[in-house]
């Protein structure tokens, strides 16, 4: 055995141990990050899944024309403005007679959501012949009842410490015994916009707002970003001071805190151009600024990765520079460009800070119909709900996070699929 082999053998044990240790460290760090992810997801899903259910109450309602001051022939605006909450209140009092205390009376009408009266109104406006009839209808239960039904209020606590008092417990127990309380899938969450009453609150408004905002961001950021990247990569003079300056600035912009873009948007779009505040239009414009550097950098990298032989072959066969770029380079770079775009868009989807300055952190309870209607976006909705005092908003906050996460995962999946589908190897 020669000397160097001896040295190697002496150190071999140590080197193996070192390698093992290194692998172990790697495994541990992956496990730690996985553990955090699991904790996060378990917490959000654990808190959020009850929000996908909602308690409904069945009431026997007599739509009394006398109480409403209506007949089946009343004009529509009269039908619209009558006080339907009285009808609901009467139905509840009939169900639980003998409530005289003012506080208890109020508690009694609070078994049912305020939306019951509006629902009844819409039914009567639709079909005035309902006046004078009676029937059983299911209405949304008030948030406190809902929270209780989901087991988040402990009935063994002393009465003074509970949101639901003893007399309310009694009513709820009666309703449960008569099968008049039922948990169903919470469709409201997906069909309604924001509301201050948790049982009526939904994410539709924010979802539409996010959709419009993303649409504008994509329509602006994608073409501008790709055009800028193509020019810088293919047409701009090489080793030019100005091109270098632009390049440095683009890279810098990618790292600028997003709130700065919000301030810029406020000063330029709202104050100078007069774009209406709080609309997806201005939100999309601001997020475009934020997304552009990401798209430009990703697109440049993708274009750079197309082998020069492709360009040379096209040029050699007589294609012009523009033809080469549009027919050969860009299609080959497209998977990379798309991935970069989707990652940029996903980032923009989760952004709230720049929207603060342009008034998108707002209470909007109408679903936006166009890009110039006031609206919020998903992350803002989550923020607003997490800041609300009502207990039932806690679970809705987590539910909204789940929906946003699902959205993001879908976007990232699409990015991966696009890459897999169009990826070329050479």
């Amino acid at each position, binding site marked *: 055995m020669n000397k160097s082999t001896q040295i190697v053998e002496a150190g071999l044990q140590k080197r193996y141990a070192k390698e093992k240790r290194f692998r172990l460290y790697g495994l541990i760090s992956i496990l730690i990050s996985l553990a955090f992810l699991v904790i996060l997801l378990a917490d959000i899903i654990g808190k959020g899944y009850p929000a996908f259910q909602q308690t409904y109450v069945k009431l026997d309602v007599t739509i009394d024309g006398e109480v409403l001051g209506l007949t089946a022939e009343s004009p529509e605006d009269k039908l*619209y*403005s009558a006080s339907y909450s009285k009808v609901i209140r009467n139905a509840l009092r009939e169900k639980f007679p003998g409530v005289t205390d*003012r506080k208890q009376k*109020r508690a009694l009408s*609070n078994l049912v959501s*305020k*939306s019951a009266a*509006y629902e009844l109104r819409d039914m009567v406006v639709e079909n005035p012949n309902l006046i004078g009839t009676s029937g059983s209808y299911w209405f949304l239960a008030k948030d406190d009842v809902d929270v209780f039904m989901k087991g988040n*209020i*402990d009935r063994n*606590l002393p009465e*003074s*410490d*509970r*949101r639901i008092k003893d007399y309310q417990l009694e009513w709820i127990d009666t309703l449960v015994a008569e099968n008049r309380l039922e948990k169903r899938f919470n469709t409201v969450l997906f069909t309604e916009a924001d*509301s*201050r*009453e948790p049982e009526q609150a939904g994410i539709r408004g924010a979802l539409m707002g996010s959709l419009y905002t993303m649409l*504008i961001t994509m*329509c*602006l950021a*994608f*073409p501008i970003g790709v*055009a800028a990247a193509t020019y810088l990569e293919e047409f701009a003079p090489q080793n030019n001071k100005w091109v270098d300056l632009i390049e440095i600035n683009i890279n810098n912009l990618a790292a600028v805190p997003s709130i700065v873009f919000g301030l810029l948007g406020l000063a330029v779009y709202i104050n100078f*151009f*007069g*774009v*209406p*505040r*709080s*609309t997806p*239009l201005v939100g999309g414009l601001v997020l475009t600024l934020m997304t552009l550097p990401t798209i430009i950098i990703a697109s440049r990298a993708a274009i750079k990765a197309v082998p020069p032989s492709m360009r040379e072959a096209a040029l050699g066969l007589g294609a012009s520079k523009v033809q080469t770029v549009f027919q050969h380079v860009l299609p080959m770079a497209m998977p990379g460009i798309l991935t970069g775009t989707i990652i940029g868009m996903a980032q923009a989807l989760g952004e709230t800070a720049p929207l603060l300055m342009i*008034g998108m*952190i*707002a*209470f*909007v*309870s*109408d679903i936006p119909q166009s*890009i*110039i209607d*006031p609206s919020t976006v998903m992350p803002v909705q989550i923020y607003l709900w*997490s*800041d*609300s*005092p*009502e*207990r039932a908003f*806690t679970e809705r906050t987590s539910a909204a996070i789940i929906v946003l996460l699902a959205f993001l995962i879908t976007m990232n999946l699409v990015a991966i699929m696009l890459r897999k589908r169009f990826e070329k190897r050479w």
Partner: protein
Amino acid sequence: MKKLPLFIAAGLVVSASAASARDYIEIVGSSTVYPFTTVVAETFGNKTKFKTPKIESTGTGGGAKLFCSGTGIDTPDITNASRRMKKSEFDTCQKNGVKDIIEVQVGFDGIAFANSKKAEQMTLTRKDIFLALAKTVPGKYEGELMLNPYKTWKDVNPELPDIKIEVLGPPPTSGTRDAFAELALEGGCKAFPAIAALKDTDKNLYKATCHEVREDGHFIEAGENDNLIVQKLEANPNALGVFGFSFLDQNSDKVHGSIIDGSELSFDSIADGDYPVSRPLYFYVKAAHIGKIPGIKEFLTEFVSEDSFGEDGYLLEKGLIPLSEEQRESFRAAATNMTPMSM
């Protein structure tokens, strides 16, 4: 490129929208009034055929700035405030042509000093709060100020328990913090004649002494989110939290409010004015926009109806403390007659 028509379309939409009028009410201002205004707005939107107003929570100061920036249609119609409009704000408004402003007081809000139900309820005075949380406190000699040396509540007042002073409160950007400084700290610091005398001689020093909160870890800024403070209190029974009454009301199974100056925090004690750390809430309406933006008048009517801010109104469920009957009457009259305020 194929996307070119979209650019042009977007450009057209911008110019078209800038020219067309807004058909919904725009409200800005205090985050404390926000939970109440939003409920009224929603009811208004449901009851009538007008669009639901859009409400931004910008803080009282930020709201006043936007509100007073002019009478153009792109400025807000209403601003919420968790204190009365300042003279300086009113002057800015006048200067920018916002001449007629209708002032409406909504009700009161109380600030809770609460701790976990697992711990005992605290009985504090405003003086205790000042001594425990101010940056500088009176020293041994008359008129001397020293950095706050107190570590436990017992150091502050021998009758209090021997636990570390640990208070979770809102950051300086919050209106609750302003009210906390003004009502609780200043209320306590006025109890020292030497400091009270400063008000006439050295106003800046007086303000600094009475409003500055200690920064040595005994007062912890817990962010704007009051729900978070409640959660942290639950986890740490020794800590005390500062937040709005509506959060206490909603979480009465988890936390209880301290007794301050002998008055327990409750709905009635705030309404009666017994509870010392409570503040009035306002909103201000731009008279110039009435008639230009549809629904402002009807919205006002809804807000000042007995159904909403009255003794049995729906705002009470959200934690608002109502005004007295005469006050309600007078503000209702001001709102329906659209009487502008003066300062």
